[in-house]
């Protein structure tokens, strides 16, 4: 009798333990899956993967050829602490911001006018389509000659690099306005001048905004090239001169900083677009259901 009870107790005990074990495994798997999804959604997984591959690859090479993530962080710490990195970021950002702002100020109104007036479009479109294929960096020597080695030549270069993409997008924005919308405005008594600010600009805004975002990408590309060739400061200068000191880690710091600067500024522009200009149809969270 005692034995039977013992067996019974053991049996249920085992069963209970088995059950709680499988529950724990299940819970663990579920938690892990949720964590992986969370990390993927927040972009953390991407970074883990990137740094993982980079770290493993760096094991096979010397610091001079391919520094590891940790060595790069150490290198970054060095130039962060002596203030160089912050200063270079500020200088490069300033150049980008000036050239890009001037590009917007010129290209948006010009695009609106060119898009609206067919004659101007016929005149300028071939010109635009010719010039935009000459990369900004091709003009560097010319701009250095014309505007000197100072800030001016770099700002002009960025201006050139941003202007076409904004111009073309603005023109497309104006051209893609639905005919009915203009007809409706005219039937409601709007003058051609009133139509410009009350229909043309709001309708073209999503395209203009895309142009502005793309323009910033062009600005970053060109500023680095320009700073590599003709500057004493800036992120491009950092990347170029680190080679001379065999500081490959600093090259990586420069590259990562550039990516981060672009990423952060694009996020800022998008947030601005979504909150301030959302009602004009700027929308980057569309789900294709």
């Amino acid at each position, binding site marked *: 009798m005692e034995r039977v009870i013992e067996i019974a107790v053991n049996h249920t005990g085992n069963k209970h333990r088995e059950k709680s074990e499988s529950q724990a495994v299940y819970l663990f798997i579920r938690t892990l899956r949720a964590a992986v999804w969370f990390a993927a959604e927040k972009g953390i997984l991407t970074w883990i993967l990137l740094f993982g591959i980079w770290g493993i690859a760096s094991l096979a090479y010397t610091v001079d050829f391919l520094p590891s993530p940790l060595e790069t962080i150490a290198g970054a710490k060095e130039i962060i602490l002596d203030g160089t990195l912050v200063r270079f970021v500020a200088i490069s950002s300033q150049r980008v911001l000036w050239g890009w702002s001037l590009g917007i100020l010129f290209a948006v109104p010009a695009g609106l006018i060119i898009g609206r007036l067919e004659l101007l479009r016929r005149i300028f479109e071939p010109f635009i389509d010719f010039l935009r294929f000459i990369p900004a960096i091709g003009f560097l020597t010319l701009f250095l000659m014309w505007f000197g080695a100072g800030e001016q030549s770099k700002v002009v270069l960025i201006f050139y690099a941003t202007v076409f993409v904004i111009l073309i997008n603005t023109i497309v924005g104006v051209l893609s306005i639905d005919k009915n*919308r203009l*007809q409706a405005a005219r039937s409601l008594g709007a003058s051609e001048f009133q139509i410009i600010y009350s229909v043309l600009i*709001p309708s073209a805004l999503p395209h203009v905004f895309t142009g502005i975002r793309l323009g910033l990408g062009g600005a970053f590309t060109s500023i680095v090239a320009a700073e590599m060739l003709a500057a004493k400061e800036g992120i491009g200068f950092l990347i170029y001169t680190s080679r001379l000191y065999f500081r490959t880690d600093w090259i990586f710091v420069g590259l990562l900083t550039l990516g981060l600067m672009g990423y952060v500024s694009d996020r800022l522009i998008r947030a601005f677009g979504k909150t301030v200009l959302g009602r*004009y149809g700027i929308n980057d969270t569309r789900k294709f259901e």
Partner: protein
Amino acid sequence: MSSAGNTCIKIDNLSKDYTYGLKPGGPGRNVIKGINLEIGRGEFHIILGPSGCGKSTLLNIIAGFISKSEGSVALNGTEIKKPGRDRGVVFQNADSAIFPWLTVRGNVEYGLRMKGMASGKRRQISSEYIRLVGLESHENKYPGELSGGMKQRVQMARSLSNDSEILIMDEPFGALDAHTRRIMQTELVRIWQETGKTIIFVTHDITEAIILGQRISIMSKSPDATIYKIYENTLPYHRNAASPGFSALFGQIQGHFDFGENI
């Protein structure tokens, strides 16, 4: 004309040809040809015809969006040359015609704002017409939040608040589901009766034409489309599609389409 004072729109021998190529008088074709029509003040006039018969061409000329080739179209004796606030237009595709960045109220006030009216007065007028078309409580919504029928109500209120004399409507209920279309037809009759506006309404739906119109102009096929026949519709509003008078008129009109007769 004895009723000259009551004529709102007078169309005389109107033709429109789209000339291909640059040579005037070169190969082209008349979309509409020799149209004569008088529309009285406060009349609900239907232009009925098959697709591609030039109804929209006629409408676009009255609205002032396109030029005519021959003849004349006059509003209160003045030749129509370009669009104006005296002729409000309700487009078939509301999504392309209303301003998506403005709220319902913003859309309804658009014409008044362009006129330079003070905001207090604007608000008062827009509230009145938002109520008339049944959009009260939706005035702060953006068009993206509205249904198809509501968007057409916005278009109507927008033209009415601007005090246009005529409402030009180009198959405005064509894209709506059958149930909403019925409601909108009833609503339009009510709005027309309350405001006394002249309405020119284009459709290819015979039932819709009979439900709405006082007079129904039937257009023949393009090229050289013209107004083939005008029916007077004296059935009392609100019209019942099952009534004998309705069926009789429907049969007569349907006959033109069935037996060809160049329609």
